[in-house]
């Protein structure tokens, strides 16, 4: 799927990861062990030093000026090689949005800080009553002098506890004719008084997400992105970024390799039924890769990804779930003991399999659930439009 030049580039990236990202950290990623915030930051700084922290950004903002295809190769190679994910919120979601809609001051101040890892961002979109249906959000912001005063609650705020900044959707015009018309996007310093971040503990005992409460939080008026009441439009742009990598080919290749390794260790590569299951998953990945390649070909020709990105989101997330389910199936009941201290010293990876299985349940829920994705595709194809 790559040209010779692209292949050479992939090798350059591969060599960089292998020399600059610690073997320890990469092993953690391969084995689905959580990487610490420090480890992630160290890798961020290594990339930044090389000028590769935000390859998809235009050169004027400190990006590389790479083509979409090179950016794709870069991110998939990183995933294959076990480099930790830097997180999407600052680099992939807010950054490009600010470039498009931010004030000159916002660009000058925030973009370099995103690039360097000085600011770590989280996204304040979801609320207790507004997940897939963002337009029904209730957190309010009222202008008081030169500050917006924010009250309300965000939920499912991934990584808020490791972030210092949040870009949030807030209701600034409660009387707008349509619910999505009265929403603005605010940049909120999480150290402001009145911000209360509370953990949401998942079944596996991990804190990756949070509730964030706002009690008369005062946000400088200049922290409003773009125009007031246009936050809904900006949020669509935010969520529309990162589309070329949406099928997570590199991540899935890594999980498939892990599955083969564990199946071999469990003596399952001679089981005809289990062999067939691995083959099915591997073929699904080949098919997704072929489809992603076709999307890349169109990107090379300047065609931005359309609903095929939504399709890849659906199938890529389903494959992630299939692969991690096969991982626990390969282990069988031996995967039961869980968490730190439970590990069989001979096979320490056993105690982490359920975590992978459990963690991937979320990939068909977040970023617009797979049901919502299908609604979007149906609408885009005009189903039900003829009356």
């Amino acid at each position, binding site marked *: 799927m790559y040209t010779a030049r692209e292949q050479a580039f992939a090798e350059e990236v591969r060599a960089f990861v292998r020399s600059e990202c610690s073997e320890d950290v990469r092993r953690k990623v391969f084995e689905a062990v959580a990487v610490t915030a420090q480890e992630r930051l160290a890798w961020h700084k290594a990339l930044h030093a090389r000028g590769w922290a935000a390859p998809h950004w235009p050169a004027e903002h400190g990006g590389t000026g790479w083509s979409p295809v090179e950016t794709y190769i870069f991110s998939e190679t990183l995933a294959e090689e076990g480099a930790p994910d830097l997180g999407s919120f600052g680099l992939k979601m807010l950054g490009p949005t600010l470039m498009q809609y931010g004030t000159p001051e916002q660009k000058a101040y925030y973009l370099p800080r995103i690039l360097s890892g000085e600011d770590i961002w989280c996204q304040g979109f979801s609320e207790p009553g507004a997940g897939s249906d963002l337009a029904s959000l209730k957190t309010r912001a009222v202008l008081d002098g030169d500050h917006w005063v924010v009250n309300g609650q965000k939920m*499912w705020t991934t990584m808020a506890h490791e972030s210092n900044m949040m870009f949030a959707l807030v209701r600034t015009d409660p009387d707008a004719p349509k619910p999505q018309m009265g929403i603005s996007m605010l940049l909120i310093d999480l150290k402001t008084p009145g911000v209360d971040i509370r953990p949401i503990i998942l079944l*596996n005992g991990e804190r990756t997400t949070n509730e964030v409460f706002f009690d008369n939080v005062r946000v400088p008026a200049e922290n409003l992105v773009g125009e007031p009441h246009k936050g809904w439009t900006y949020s669509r742009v935010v969520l529309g970024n990162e589309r070329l990598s949406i099928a997570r080919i590199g991540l899935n290749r890594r999980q498939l390799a892990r599955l083969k390794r564990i199946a071999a260790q469990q*003596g399952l590569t001679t089981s005809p039924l289990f062999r067939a299951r691995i083959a099915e998953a591997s073929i699904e990945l080949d098919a997704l890769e072929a489809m992603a390649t076709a999307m890349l070909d169109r990107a090379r020709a300047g065609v931005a990804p359309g609903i095929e990105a939504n399709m890849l989101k659906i199938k890529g997330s389903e494959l992630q779930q299939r692969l991690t389910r096969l991982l626990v199936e*390969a*282990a069988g009941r031996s995967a039961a003991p*869980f968490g730190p201290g439970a590990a069989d010293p001979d096979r320490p990876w056993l105690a982490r399999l359920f975590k992978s299985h*459990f963690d991937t349940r979320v990939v*068909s*829920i*977040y970023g617009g659930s797979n049901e919502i994705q299908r609604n979007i595709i149906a609408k885009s194809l005009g189903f039900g439009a003829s009356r």
Partner: protein
Amino acid sequence: MSTTQMDPAPAQSDDADIRALLRNSLDTVLARHYSFEQRRDARENEARESQAAWAAYAELGLLALTLPAGHGGLPVSLADLAMVVEAMGGAMVLEPYAPAMVAARLLSAAGSEDQQAAWLPAICRGEVRVILAHEEANGGYAKPIAASATPDPHGWRLSGRKSAVAGGDTADLFIVSANTANGVALFLVPAADLAIRPARSFDWTGTADLMLDDVIIPTSARLTGGEAALAAALDEAAALACADAVGAIRAANALTRAHTSTRRQFGRSLDAFQVLQHRLVDMTIAQELAAPITAAAIAACAAATPAERARAVSAAKVKVGEAARYVGEQCVQLHGGMGLVQEYPAAHLFARLSLFELSHGGRDYHLERYAELVL
């Protein structure tokens, strides 16, 4: 047509009155000891389970069900026991009730009169917890086992490992399967004589690995019954696990229905969307298929030939496994983020159903065993 004759009813009970009585006491004890919050608290206090609950089971006679009356048991039918297990699955109890009952039944089926007299009364009273330790590493459910028992001047010498034994962390007594020169035999071994690595399973129930490092046990520790009794116990364990899963499936469906009927999106309740309605229908169908085939497996364990029993149990394990997977996954999916948090039952039901699928032999094992029996 299946050749399994569920009728005439087993001699002991299957009696609607006993069942209603049991069901009532069970509901009372689960209501008292197994609210979702109590379960969490028990867990957070680093107790892996509620001691009070086990005592309450004993008091109600639940630990004596199906065991011989002469040793303190209450001779009801296996279907009655399955009903209790199903309710416990729905409440996601942490104690190893079904595993302990399987082991006690194995002791009553394969133990000598002396062995039964020595242990069963205390088991029925809840003073001794017995657990069958059979499965070994590499997911080897019923594969040839590696643990061995060799004659020793003082009796038998056991070596090998038992892996992820459900309830092994709190057992007082184990029935351990091991190879002898004359095939597989079963041995009663007090937990105190063994090296045990206890752990918590991802569904919060207890488990343990057993290290049999040249453990010496007396000749008298060997059970009379061997391979056939073990095979029956393994099938019973799988069938009762199906009953537990059916309880969890019902609970997951009820939870999901409640959520989708109250949670609103785009101005409508979630269960007003046709795609989710059909999903909920398919979850219900999965449940309505899982329950009767589990009943058939339980009936076969009570009354059929070993081959019929194996066929019925493998069919149930495969079919309930499908239902467990589908309902567990969709329960999480339809809850959204709420489906993943520790403070809400959905993720716990998903975990329990996931562990069910992995235990007692996976889908492939049972498909192959079933095919062997019908082809």
